[in-house]
């Protein structure tokens, strides 16, 4: 296949749109969570200001090479995931660098950032970082299991590893979406989704009230800003995978924005209603409720 250079600027445009959408959506979700607590919450543009502030800090302390690379890995996890997933179905411009086996790559990239973060935070030498990373990785592994099972069930169902083909197979009406054709797999994946969004009840690794504040304890200035950038990109990139696999993909930006927002609201709703799990509770929860659903999805597909 011949490579077209025009795809690079298009991919950068996707990145730009998703970055801004992610920042605004994160702030909106924070505002919604604040309203549940009867507060007004932050202004919608607050995340931009925080980002500029952190990039403008004049000094920074390093703890070694991996400390530098941690946020870089984290960001490349988010950017990489976004780059290899077709964001808008049927659009030449916004299908990015998707290819026939991109589902496997996406599955890998979802985990990539966390691993990079583990190395970086480990080198910072702060005990809270080490505790946070241990908890985070344990919980991530438990929540990744039902997600992987669900993805394999969907791949088996459509007999393909290409996200574009999976979206294509769901076209032609809402009843063709995976959520209706394979509800077990989607149920498992949606439970796993809660675990990967870093919101309560599964935010014990990052919550400021627990180990303050877990992996990024030592990260500051532009290191932290890189991670904040990823915080805008990565959830949207991950939800792009979810929308494509389970909810019929998106054929235009407004549909994409709506579906991603509603998907995010699922974790926000659960987050404001339920209190925080300890890490062994959340692992047990995933193994008892989510993994059997995933196994069932694989068996019955």
């Amino acid at each position, binding site marked *: 296949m011949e490579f077209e250079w025009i795809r690079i600027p298009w991919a950068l445009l996707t990145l730009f749109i998703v970055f801004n959408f992610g920042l605004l959506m994160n702030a909106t979700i924070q505002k919604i969570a604040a309203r549940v607590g009867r507060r007004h919450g*932050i202004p919608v543009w607050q995340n931009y200001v925080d980002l500029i502030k952190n990039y403008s800090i004049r*000094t920074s*302390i390093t703890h070694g090479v991996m400390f530098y690379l941690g946020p870089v890995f984290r960001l490349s996890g988010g950017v990489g995931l976004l780059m290899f997933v077709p964001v808008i179905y049927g659009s030449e411009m916004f299908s990015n660098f998707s290819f026939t086996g991109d589902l496997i790559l996406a599955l890998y990239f979802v985990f990539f950032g966390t691993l990079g973060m583990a190395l970086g935070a480990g080198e910072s030498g702060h005990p809270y970082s080490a505790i946070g990373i241990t908890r985070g990785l344990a919980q991530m592994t438990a929540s990744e299991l039902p997600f992987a099972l669900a993805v394999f069930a969907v791949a088996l169902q459509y007999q393909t590893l290409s996200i574009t083909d999976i979206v294509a197979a769901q076209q032609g009406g809402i009843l063709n979406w995976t959520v209706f054709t394979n509800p077990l797999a989607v149920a498992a994946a949606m439970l796993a989704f809660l675990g990967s969004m870093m919101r309560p009840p599964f935010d014990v690794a990052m919550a400021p009230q627990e180990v303050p504040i877990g992996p990024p304890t030592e990260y500051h200035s532009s290191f932290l800003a890189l991670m904040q950038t990823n915080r805008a990109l990565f959830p949207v990139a991950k939800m792009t995978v979810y929308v494509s696999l389970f909810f019929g993909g998106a054929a235009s930006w407004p549909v994409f924005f709506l579906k991603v927002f509603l998907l995010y609201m699922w974790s926000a709703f659960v987050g404001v209603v339920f209190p925080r799990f300890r890490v062994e509770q959340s692992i047990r929860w995933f193994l008892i409720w989510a993994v059997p659903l995933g196994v069932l999805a694989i068996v019955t597909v």
Partner: protein
Amino acid sequence: MKEELIKRVVKTPDGQEIEINPMEDYFCQAGPTVQPPAYTAIIEKLFNWARSESLWILGYGTGCGAIEMRPLMTPRFDAYRYGIQWRPTPRQANLLVISGYLSVKTLKRVIRSYEQMQGPKFVVGLGSCTINGGMYWDSYNTIKRLDDFLPVDVYIAGCMPRPEALLAGFEELKKIIRAGKGEGANTYAENFEWYKANQKRVIKDWDMPDYSW
């Protein structure tokens, strides 16, 4: 000084005699340096605006005044509206609120926390105790003037000042930062010897490096 921090000679398992000086071996000895605004004026203005609109407070209550910060996080006063947030680690915070009286024991931790924050950083003295000792003016173990130990940007008078007073103080601090006068970190670096001498005068058991990176 604690025993484990004293310079000593130890014998290694293979019979060598080596000298261990924990303060120099474990900690960086370099002092702070003045960090100039490195960009053109318009960018520095943008940065100053961003710094003023994104005040991250270190969640560290030094005295009874910390109780006035809690209502700011809750619905009635909700400081998040003004871009004020709390961070649990000094690395990410850029505003240190000295909330009330400061005992000598706490001063030590305050200095370490302040030095670990990354510049530009700001200090707000909350309550009369930080101005002149307040009701602890003749206490044997609290400091009287916070300004002798850390460069303070804004004082909020009162005993205790209400949360509204805090919000007003933060708004005042925002004006100072936007005007480009929030250079406490540089003041600290410029007058480092003076601040250290003052700190060491009251802290008798000084067992930490001169500057905690």
